[in-house]
């Protein structure tokens, strides 16, 4: 947003899988694989304001970090998955290495998807494929279709207003990459979704387009049956627990929307403040050219203000790149969850309608007809799946927002630390006594 012209994407040559570091190996990898972060309670951060030192669970200090370390980047590196209690993970997925492809018809970006797994569903232990956004979009639709009782994570927004945002700028592509990586990791974490055939194909197929065209729909029994639920059934009352979820999601999305607007406004104000600061500093420089003894002090103040301006620019960039996308993602998530709730209502409505119809027939047969039983099954499975997914979602949400809010507080602290250092460093310069000229 605030910054120079968009940087060109780096183009990396073909990368051997062997060269790729294992996702969980050391601090040199960009992203740790796994679910959402649960930083160890012992992880503390060094600060000028707090007196705690950087401590890792194994007692060492992270390689390649210089203090003051950012808590969010550290948390990324030391992600421990808390979803699978003690269970060993057998599937790792990473999205990285965006590349621009220029063709006659269009220009687009592809991302490299690297998969490592010991699961039997995978023929090879490792895969590396390239996918573009529309492939992700396809995957999501397929998941929604085939797993309608589950909450499918959201994708970053599909449409981007051309001319306002540069689709090929490094910042935009990196933001998108992170979101896509998160999307796949959430599916990877999911005990049901991660075994989905479409997901498997997405991760492994050399030619995804061919597969898409074949239209092989390997629907699960549940998917098929839910798909055939005819609409038009009206639910009288939503059960309390699902109504509570619905209300919660409504308020949640509303509040996030407000926060998003406020954050955007803050960024706008900060940018305008930055513009003025960039004019303010140099005036001290101009003044210093008129002076003798005061020349150095004034020049020092000018440089100091320049440093603060740069620090502020970094802060606004961080807000744009790290804070806003997560807010938007959760708003999208809430929307898709609400539609799943509606589908659940449909299933319940069908069941209740059929049940009522049976009751009205006034037959003495104690046995409930098979199809009504099927409906009941369907409803109960749906409810169970949804409840499990909601709990998982709540956990993830807590982790994500904790990380997000702490991260933002941390970024702010870094900004004030940089300013503090700048001003403290010129005090001795200002107090210096010069020899009489």
């Amino acid at each position, binding site marked *: 947003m605030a910054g120079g012209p968009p940087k060109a994407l780096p183009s990396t040559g073909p990368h051997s899988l062997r060269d790729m570091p294992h996702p969980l190996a050391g601090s040199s990898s960009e992203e740790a694989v796994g679910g959402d972060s649960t930083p160890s309670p012992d992880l503390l951060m060094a600060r000028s304001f707090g007196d705690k030192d950087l401590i890792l669970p194994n007692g060492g200090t992270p390689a390649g970090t210089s203090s003051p370390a950012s808590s969010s980047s550290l948390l990324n590196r030391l992600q421990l998955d808390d979803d699978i209690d003690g269970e060993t993970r057998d599937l790792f997925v990473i999205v990285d290495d965006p590349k621009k492809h220029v063709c006659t018809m269009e220009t687009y970006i592809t991302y490299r998807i690297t998969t490592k797994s010991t699961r039997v569903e995978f023929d090879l232990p490792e895969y590396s494929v390239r996918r573009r956004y529309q492939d992700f979009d396809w995957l999501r639709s397929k998941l929604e279709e085939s797993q309608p009782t589950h909450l499918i994570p959201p994708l970053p927004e599909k449409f981007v207003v051309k001319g306002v945002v540069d689709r090929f700028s490094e910042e935009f592509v990196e933001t998108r990459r992170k979101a896509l990586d998160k999307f796949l990791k959430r599916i990877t974490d999911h005990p049901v979704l991660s075994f989905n055939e479409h997901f498997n194909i997405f991760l492994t197929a050399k030619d995804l387009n061919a597969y898409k065209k074949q239209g092989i729909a390997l629907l699960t029994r549940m998917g098929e049956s839910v798909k055939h639920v005819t609409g038009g059934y009206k639910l009288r009352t939503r059960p309390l627990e699902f109504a509570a979820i619905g209300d919660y999601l409504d308020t949640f999305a509303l509040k996030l929307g407000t926060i998003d607007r*406020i954050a955007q406004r803050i960024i706008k104000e900060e940018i*305008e403040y930055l*513009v003025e600061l960039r004019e303010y500093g140099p005036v001290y420089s*101009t003044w210093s050219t008129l002076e003798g003894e005061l020349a150095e002090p004034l020049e020092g103040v000018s440089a100091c203000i320049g440093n603060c301006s740069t620090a502020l620019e970094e802060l606004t960039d961080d807000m744009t790149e790290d804070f806003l996308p997560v807010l938007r993602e959760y708003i999208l998530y809430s929307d898709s969850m609400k539609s799943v709730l509606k589908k659940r209502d449909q299933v319940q409505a069908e069941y209740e309608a059929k049940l009522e119809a049976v009751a009205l027939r006034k037959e003495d047969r104690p046995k409930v007809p098979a199809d009504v039983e099927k409906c009941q099954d369907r409803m109960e499975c749906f409810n169970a799946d949804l409840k499990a997914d909601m709990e998982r979602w709540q956990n993830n949400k807590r982790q994500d927002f904790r990380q997000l809010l702490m991260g933002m*507080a941390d970024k702010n602290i870094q900004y*004030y630390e940089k300013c*503090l250092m700048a001003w403290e460093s010129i005090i001795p310069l*200002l107090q210096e006594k010069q020899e009489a000229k």
Partner: protein
Amino acid sequence: MEQAPPDPERQLQPAPLEPLGSPDAGLGAAVGKETEGAGEESSGVDTMTHNNFWLKKIEISVSEAEKRTGRNAMNMQETYTAYLIETRSIEHTDGQSVLTDSLWRRYSEFELLRSYLLVYYPHIVVPPLPEKRAEFVWHKLSADNMDPDFVERRRIGLENFLLRIASHPLLCRDKIFYLFLTQVFFFYLADSRLKALNATFRVKNPDKRFTDLKHYSDELQSVISHLLRVRARVADRLYGVYKVHGNYGRVFSEWSAIEKEMGDGLQSAGHHMDVYASSIDDILEDEEHYADQLKEYLFYAEALRAVCRKHELMQYDLEMAAQDLASKKQQCEELATGTVRTFSLKGMTTKLFGQETPEQREARIKVLEEQINEGEQQLKSKNLEGREFVKNAWADIERFKEQKNRDLKEALISYAVMQISMCKKVGFGFNEDICIFRSAYTFI
């Protein structure tokens, strides 16, 4: 300063009060006690500005401001602010101070005092007054002269003005200054010399040092004005940033109501945002103090320029006198030798109406010789006066330079300290946030 031959128009030397003890001892002691950064103190009552006024130590303060209504010269009702000037003398032995004088004055009376000083101490860089109208305001501050913040800052500025005069080795002994502090009725006729300062004229042989100084003062004025303007805009924008953060307060609070584990963290974050947003008012108020320090030197640049102008005026005067003398000499010579080289009305009429008699010519030569004599005397004294002015002016300019460097360094240091404490306070607040988030979460 050596006294030149009396000239009622120009040589109105203020009569210094006779010191009670030996005059030299008093002067020496007064010079020794220079105030350090008199501009920084917000109240002159606590920080002593010792002034060996008649060998006694006095303390000056502008302690109060009051709104008044009265009738102006055109018999119209007007509202103005009056300021209370209190003078205390400090007994040497026990350090107790006794109120000796107190009176109320308004801004225009301070202006009169300053005009007087400008005229009668032409070689001195006269301390400036605080601004007449609020300038360089950012949106929050009212541009209204009755605004309490403006009045308060003006009170401090007026006190600072008096303290600067009291600490000046020469100005502190001025009788009119004493009367300003003690006499309720203060009456002073504006001198025509003051008007002359604004006249335009050209000097043939300008003194390079004064020309350079004039340029410096112009440039200083320009750069400080620019600085103050941009600073006001910066303050305005910073205000916006802080206040928008305040909007988070309510929404975080509302959000915390629907959350279980996250509730506490969100609530505290919301509260912190409110605190953050309200902290800007104090921050910017402190910064106004810095702006005032800069403003003082903006106006000081004007005073510096005035000294240069006075020198130019003197120089011009000198050149005119020299020119006048030279032409009279030439006239005399022509009369004596009979050659007419210069045009004169007398010469023309002589040509038209006949030569004048030798007696007439003799009479004229005698008058001219007298005038030449007088002119030479005057030129001598003007030259002397000029040299004295330059010597004294440069002495005061050097003193001013030292003071300026000291004061501005102090101002920059206090500005840096302000920024540092602000960073620490805000950073600490955010750190508290992180601690609360960390502790408020329970892990599964």
